[in-house]
């Protein structure tokens, strides 16, 4: 079949570049895979030992908590602010379209670059944020945004919110455009105020789009790597470590590839659970 010749490379690509790595990582999670494995080619199967050791790692519990807080905080704020901006930009006003497309610029920049810019802004001694807070007498001494174990997770979460706002805004803006204007007119005739129109018309009709944005947002947020690495590298003392950066740290810093793979597999598991929930929700909505 000639048709098959055109799609065969893509199938092969899926097998070699997605299925094979995924299978490799699942397998490595059950192997004692260390740096010597690369030289000797030997990585004995050890059952669930990697998982037991990872669970017992003193950094693990904190990492899970961080991942939940980072993900929940990012999703909530990205979505809230993205929705507010989408509603704002939906009204027509001069230059609205141009401003809206310029808002996307931060989204297109390499995250390493914007992360570096934020690191400079949040710098304890000469960063502009602390300078401004000090000048306004809002704080009495510089705040160690990235250098304190209490604040680092909040700081990386807020920067990640900044990264995610444009994505949320674009998709939600598209969703808002699809709501027929007559519905708002009818609601207005029935005496519904602005807030009621938002609650009774916008939110229910936006639900399918909301599900998509939040599920994709969740899967993307679990994968966030660049922002955390550039800002804090998961530190200080693992205070901003998430499962993704933890997996990197285990594999590529501590060279315990079996452990890193085990944590990676946990991430896959979480993503699969939510993806299935998402597909189910998708099927239920007509």
């Amino acid at each position, binding site marked *: 079949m*000639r*048709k*098959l*010749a*055109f*799609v065969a490379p*893509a199938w092969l690509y*899926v097998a070699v*570049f*997605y299925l*094979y*790595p*995924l299978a*490799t*990582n699942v397998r*490595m999670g059950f192997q004692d895979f260390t740096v010597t494995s690369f030289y000797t080619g030997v990585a004995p199967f050890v059952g669930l030992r990697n998982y037991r050791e990872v669970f017992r790692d003193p950094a693990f519990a904190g990492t899970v908590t961080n991942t939940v807080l980072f993900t929940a905080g990012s999703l909530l704020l990205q979505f809230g602010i993205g929705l507010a*901006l989408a509603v*704002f*930009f939906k*009204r027509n006003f001069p*230059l609205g379209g141009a*401003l809206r*497309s*310029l*808002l*996307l*610029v*931060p*989204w*297109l*920049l*390499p*995250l*390493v*670059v914007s992360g*570096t*810019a934020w*690191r*400079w*802004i949040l710098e304890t*001694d*000469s960063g502009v944020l602390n*300078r401004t807070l000090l*000048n306004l007498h809002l704080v009495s001494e510089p705040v160690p945004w990235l250098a304190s174990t209490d604040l680092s997770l909040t700081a990386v979460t807020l920067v990640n919110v*900044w990264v995610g706002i*444009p*994505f949320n805004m*674009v998709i939600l803006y598209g969703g808002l455009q699809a709501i027929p204007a007559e519905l708002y007119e009818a609601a207005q005739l029935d005496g519904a105020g602005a807030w009621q129109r938002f609650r009774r018309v916008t939110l229910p009709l936006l639900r399918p789009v909301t599900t998509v944005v939040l599920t994709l947002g969740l899967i993307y947020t679990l*994968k966030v*790597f*660049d922002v955390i*690495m*550039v800002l804090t590298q998961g530190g200080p003392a693992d205070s901003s470590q998430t499962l*993704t950066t933890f*997996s*990197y740290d285990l*594999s590529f810093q501590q060279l315990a590839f079996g452990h890193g793979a085990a944590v990676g597999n946990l*991430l896959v598991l979480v*993503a699969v659970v939510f*993806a299935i929930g998402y597909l189910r929700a998708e099927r239920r909505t007509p």
Partner: protein
Amino acid sequence: MKTALGVSILAVMLFPLYWMLNASLLPSTELIQPEPTWLPIHGTLDGYRNALQSQGGHLLTSLYVALGTVAVTLAVAVPAAYGLAQLGAPLGRTLLFALLVAQMIPGIVMANAFYVAANELYLINTPIALILADSTLCVPFAVLILHAFMRGIPAEIREAAALDGASSLRALRSVILPVSRNAVITASLFSFLFAWADFLYAVTLTTRDEAAPITVGIYRFIGAHISDWNSVMATGVIASLPVAVLLVVAQRYVAAGITSGSVKD
């Protein structure tokens, strides 16, 4: 009124980028003054000189890797999209679904496995490894966008070419591809940007500084010269240039890519 509010929102959102540009033009001595300098009036280009000197090689590597990624991505995605959209290849929905799901595999999982494979194949520190790894960020998006576009091309166009004796491959090359020009440009642009911005594969698959692309160059540069914010920020500005150029030159294609859905992780 609303425009003023919109401009303020934009100013807040873009402030980090302005602040990077500002610092890239200010001498380091001025950056550590207690009062921030808001406008780089007495600017310097020293940062850019340092940046080009230390990061020039990384920029070239990034350029090479990004172009290679575009080539690999198109080589896989164009025939696939054509086969699915125009020739009705079997299991089309399954392939699209597989690509959609593949996009969701956490990058760190892929990086782990790619590192092992690249090590076995002696590809660590080579652009080939980065090109192949980066293409996994691009192929799903490229197939989806090309498929969406090619599905809209009337079958009669291709059938007319077939009546004239053109093979399926010939029809792709001389009829479908020229018609799909915009979609191909959009797919290429985004592939270029994804590969240019990649950090995870770059930091895991390169161990030697000479082999590293610009994202890793910046990352290691901050590690080594944390006090020299002027040069660090100049490097950041230079690394953003391709994005800026593409935004200006190809704005409508970027817009097309963004509206076609969830394109960046």
